[in-house]
């Protein structure tokens, strides 16, 4: 039965990717990674310039997953309680309290979309830490559970005005940080400008069939993937070597241009990060119709699951994106399997 489930769900995943690729063009790799994160039950942080389609992409996935969907915009005056409740004067002239975005859908909340997360204050990030890690929230003397919730967030790395850097503890809660870049293909770029279907985002997203996936079955199926897709001792050793290399890259002969490798890394990937990496790698193996994880499955998710977890010396933080990319590429090139 489980083999049939794996096959059926694989078809769902392929349909999901196919539908979203019709709406968001030239982003096959991010779409594959987000699909992987959904089946790994991991939160996703999109990073990219303004107007590159981050929000459209997340809205499209949200429509496909089904379930409760809530969205909030990150602003400098956003406070944690704004995520939990809001107050207003009712028609009866009395103050009323209604559930905020986190509580509104109850346990059926499947996607919580945090737009421009780096504009929110650290207090908001702090609240989000618990919600992302434990999928619970205490409010009104009551514990709320969000077992199906995934947090999709995006941030603009270029604009630094009135923004707050997401602390490493919060970054570590995200399974993946996925860069979104404008596609370089001339045909795609031309269609983005001239094809009128891309002008109206709401209409565009509505063209996607809703509820391709059953949000309330994803947790169980994700557990099934993690059980069925195996990893041999050779692969485990390879993953361990990769982990060690993120901590002491110079010991593996990894070099990054213009960087003192002995001073670069303050903290390598966390155990949670490496665990998430392997969960994502298993899902990647499943999507590619394999029963076991290959090094190539790890490579497919290595950058997106590890790069944002590395803690660099402050002097290198300004070049974080570029250095993390070169460092992880160097690690993959340096560590052999078998």
């Amino acid at each position: 039965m489980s083999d049939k489930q794996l096959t059926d769900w694989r078809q769902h995943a392929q349909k999901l990717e196919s539908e979203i690729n019709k709406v968001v063009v030239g982003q096959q790799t991010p779409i594959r990674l987000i699909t992987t994160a959904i089946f790994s039950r991991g939160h996703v942080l999109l990073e990219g310039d303004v107007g590159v389609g981050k929000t459209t992409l997340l809205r499209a996935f949200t429509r496909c997953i089904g379930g409760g969907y809530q969205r909030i915009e990150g602003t400098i005056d956003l406070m944690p309680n704004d995520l939990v409740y809001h107050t207003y004067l009712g028609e009866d002239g009395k103050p009323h309290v209604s559930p905020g975005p986190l509580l509104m859908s109850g346990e059926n909340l499947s996607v919580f979309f945090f737009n421009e997360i780096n504009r929110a204050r650290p207090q908001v990030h702090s609240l989000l830490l618990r919600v992302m890690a434990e999928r619970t929230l205490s409010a009104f003397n009551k514990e709320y559970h969000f077992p199906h919730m995934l947090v999709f967030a995006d941030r603009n790395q270029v604009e630094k005005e009135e923004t707050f850097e997401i602390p490493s503890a919060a970054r570590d809660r995200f399974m993946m940080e996925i860069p979104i870049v404008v596609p370089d293909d001339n045909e795609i770029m031309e269609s983005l400008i001239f094809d009128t279907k891309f002008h109206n985002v709401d209409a565009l997203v509505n063209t996607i069939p809703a509820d391709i996936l059953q949000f309330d079955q994803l947790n169980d199926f994700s557990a099934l993937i993690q059980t069925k897709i195996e990893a041999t001792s050779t692969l485990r050793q390879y993953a361990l070597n990769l982990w060690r290399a993120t901590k002491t890259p110079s010991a593996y002969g990894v070099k990054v241009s213009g960087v003192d490798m002995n001073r670069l890394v303050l903290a390598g990937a966390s155990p949670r990060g490496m665990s998430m990496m392997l969960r994502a790698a298993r899902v990647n193996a499943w999507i590619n119709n394999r029963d076991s994880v290959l090094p190539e499955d790890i490579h497919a998710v290595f950058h997106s699951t590890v790069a944002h977890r590395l803690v660099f010396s402050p002097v290198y933080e300004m070049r974080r994106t570029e250095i993390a990319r070169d460092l992880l590429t160097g690690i993959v090139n340096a560590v052999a399997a078998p």
Partner: protein
Amino acid sequence: MNCQMNQLIKLINISLLSLILSTSFLANANDEPSPEIPEGIVKLSKINPDRNVGFLMGDIMNRTITLEVKKPYKLIETTLPIVGYEHRYKGQVSGIELRKINHTEKENRDTTTYVIQLAYQVFTTAPVVKPAILPAETVKFQGPPTEEAKDGLVQYTIPEFYFRISPMAVFGAVKIEEDMSPLRQPVLLQPYVEKQKLTAYLAVLGLSLLGLLYILGSRAWLPLMGRPFAQASRQLTKLSSKNPEDLKLALSRVHKALNTTAKYSVFSDNMDAFLSHTPSFKAIEAEIDQFFTLSHQVFFDTQISTSHDGNSLVWLKKFCKQCRDCERGLKPAKQKKA
């Protein structure tokens, strides 16, 4: 004046005539046999070599002859033996040559003492001990005219000295019955010891070279031998199809050779980069894909990793040789699929 000139010319003519006559007389004195000197006139004493055996070709033999001659007999010096004269015995050159002669003359009251020092050199040898003589030398004296010697010339024969010439060959080294030619060249010394030493040195040199080949054979000692796939190919030939672990070892060796060639870890997902950097491997692109499939099955697939037979190793050895050809810039031979 003319009369004086005529007398002078006469005088010169007479002198020349007397000179010619005396020369012809001396020549006659040397060549013609004369009567023996009367007994008791000459008293002979001689110092011969201190031994009469064991002389080899090239040896110098000294002989001192002392003749005490009663007056008025006087030695005619031109009858002394001449340096370089080769004595003959029965028409054959004897091989004994006078190298040096000195003589002194001492006047006594009634006698004259002549001391003649002769140095002979041996210029002959034989395969066996050969008898030889220092020849008898005949010298002449001028004495008063007698009935036998009207011109007063008498001769005295210095007795010969008998000795043995030793052969230069070791007994048995020459078969005389096969070597009777008189034209035979001198027998050379046989360098047995030197030959044995030379043989021993050559043997040591040969063993040293073999040892050097053995040591260097496993490393790079020719330009093409040190390349990664050349080394891997040599190591794979030592592996057996019967041992299942050898297939893993062989795959690891080929992986290592690929990584060394590329200078980074090569996986199936970065093969395009590898082929673009090392285009000589493009000829076996399909085989490289097949290699990665095999590697994945053996190292990472939990279902079929133990089901490989010996054919996989045979195929792998051929594949490694194909890679070796590629790294040498040769066109690799195609092989059937495993």
